[in-house]
């Protein structure tokens, strides 16, 4: 390091390799799959649920592509809770909107003032409901079994630029940090007499003094963060050395292509009307 070389010779016992907590494998077989495989499965399942339409298709799809892996990954309980939490707002309003406002429907089930609930509406509403649950299930399965940084490292190994990886990883850490910053700013502005318990109009007036510093304060840090990154070789073109990258196998690569092919077949079939 600085000055005499002696300082940089690794002191005794420095022959420790990469510590075990870097890239620690997940707790179950499904966790230990390559992140790209899990991402492909989630995306293919979500798109297939939309393209399939109907009720039976998505339900079978969810059982095979979401429930089974969740059991293998021992995350079924959390999956159901999280997926429902994620799907709830959309599912409820989708169900109500379609039930009561399905145009051109004749068979009236229930009349509430000017609004009528119809059978066709119910059918369509159920279809949308299952579709939304399928999508949120697939996405939640991925979210529960994969560390985002692992997918980024895997993509970087495959040639994606480290800069794009940086944006993804840094964003994941920035969201909670920004929420924390907003809380501190709210306290600072309240200490200067800004009333957050008053009337709606006063609260709306409070948006700029809170959102302003959150954005401007973060932007003011961009300069120092830029310098700190460039002082650590961030601008060196080409590939980075990676401490580790998630294991992958020919079998999984095959599975990924198979999933994509199946999805393509499904879409072409659906569009050319081979099956309803």
């Amino acid at each position, binding site marked *: 390091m600085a000055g005499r070389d002696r300082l940089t010779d690794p002191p005794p016992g420095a022959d420790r390799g990469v510590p075990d907590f870097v890239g620690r494998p997940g707790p179950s077989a499904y966790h230990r799959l390559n992140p790209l495989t899990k991402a492909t499965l989630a995306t293919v399942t979500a798109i297939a649920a939309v393209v399939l339409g109907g009720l039976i298709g998505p339900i079978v799809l969810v059982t095979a592509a979401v429930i089974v892996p969740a059991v293998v990954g021992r995350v079924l309980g959390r999956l159901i809770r999280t997926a429902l939490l994620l799907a709830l707002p959309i599912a409820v309003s989708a169900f109500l909107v379609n039930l009561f406002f399905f145009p051109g429907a004749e068979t009236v089930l229930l009349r509430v003032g000017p609004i009528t609930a119809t059978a066709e509406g119910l059918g369509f509403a159920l279809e949308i409901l299952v579709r939304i649950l399928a999508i949120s299930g697939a996405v939640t399965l991925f979210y529960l079994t994969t560390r985002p940084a692992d997918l980024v490292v895997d993509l970087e190994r495959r040639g994606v630029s480290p800069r794009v990886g940086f944006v993804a990883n840094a964003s994941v850490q920035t969201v909670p940090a920004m929420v924390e910053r907003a809380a501190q700013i709210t306290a600072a*502005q309240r*200490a200067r007499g*800004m009333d957050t318990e008053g009337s709606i109009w006063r609260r709306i007036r409070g948006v700029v003094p809170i959102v302003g510093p959150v954005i401007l*304060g973060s932007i*003011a840090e961009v300069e120092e963060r830029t310098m700190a990154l460039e002082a650590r070789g961030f601008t060196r073109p080409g590939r980075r050395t990676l401490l580790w990258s998630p294991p992958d196998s020919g079998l999984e690569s095959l599975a990924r292509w198979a999933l994509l092919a199946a999805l393509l077949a499904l879409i072409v079939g659906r569009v050319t009307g081979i099956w309803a």
Partner: protein
Amino acid sequence: MAELVAESLVHVYRDGGVRALDGVDLRIGPGERVALVGQNGSGKTTLVRHLNGLLRPTEGRVTVDGADATTMTVAQLASRVGLVFQDPDRQIFAGSVRAEVEFGPRNLGRSGADLRAGVAEALDAVGLAGDVGTNPYDLGQSRRKLLALASVLAMRTQVLVLDEPTTGQDARGVERVRAVIESVAAEGRSVVAISHDMRFVAETFERVVVMRAGRIVLDGPPTSVFARDGWDALSSTYLEPPLAATVGDRLSLGSTPTDETLIDALARSA
């Protein structure tokens, strides 16, 4: 004039269940200059946030001129207890220095000549009178901190609370902060400041409150807190007395917390 009183104040943070304040009794009279010292996590910031209602007590109570603080909203308390945070970037949002300083007084309903006078006076006190139209982010870090001080000073609150006012300031900046504190106290308004700068504390404040693990372990003038018998309480909070006090003790000249008191003691004993 405002009298702040904390009675057996306890505060437990929801998430960690940590007792940040473990029974604090403190009275701050009008015009008093009180320094709050102690290691990070000793409860200084938690205590200060109870004075303007940002935090509500888990047990015990805080009164402002006898009235229980919980009966007042933070906005109402803010008109009497002004709090300047440590990081200026956690509050600056306006496009110009003047607009930033006007924010506080405007929230308190002041306008017109009264508002302008308060703003001008505050900017003058911190030496930013010449930068009225400047964008705050074009000022350096140390002057942005003085801007944050001015933005609360302009509210003319009866109690002024400062969180680490001298961090990152150079010698002139510290002088300016001291001058502001002295002028505020001279008007009979009380000043409470959290600080790690022991020399600044010894020379600027007439009373030092030492905190550890959510309790007050020492409360008295600098001459007693920085005297020899106060040191064990101080050292338990990893704080070192100012050099003048240490030298005074080595030469057994009694308690000499500031340069001035040390020199006097030396002169008397020559």
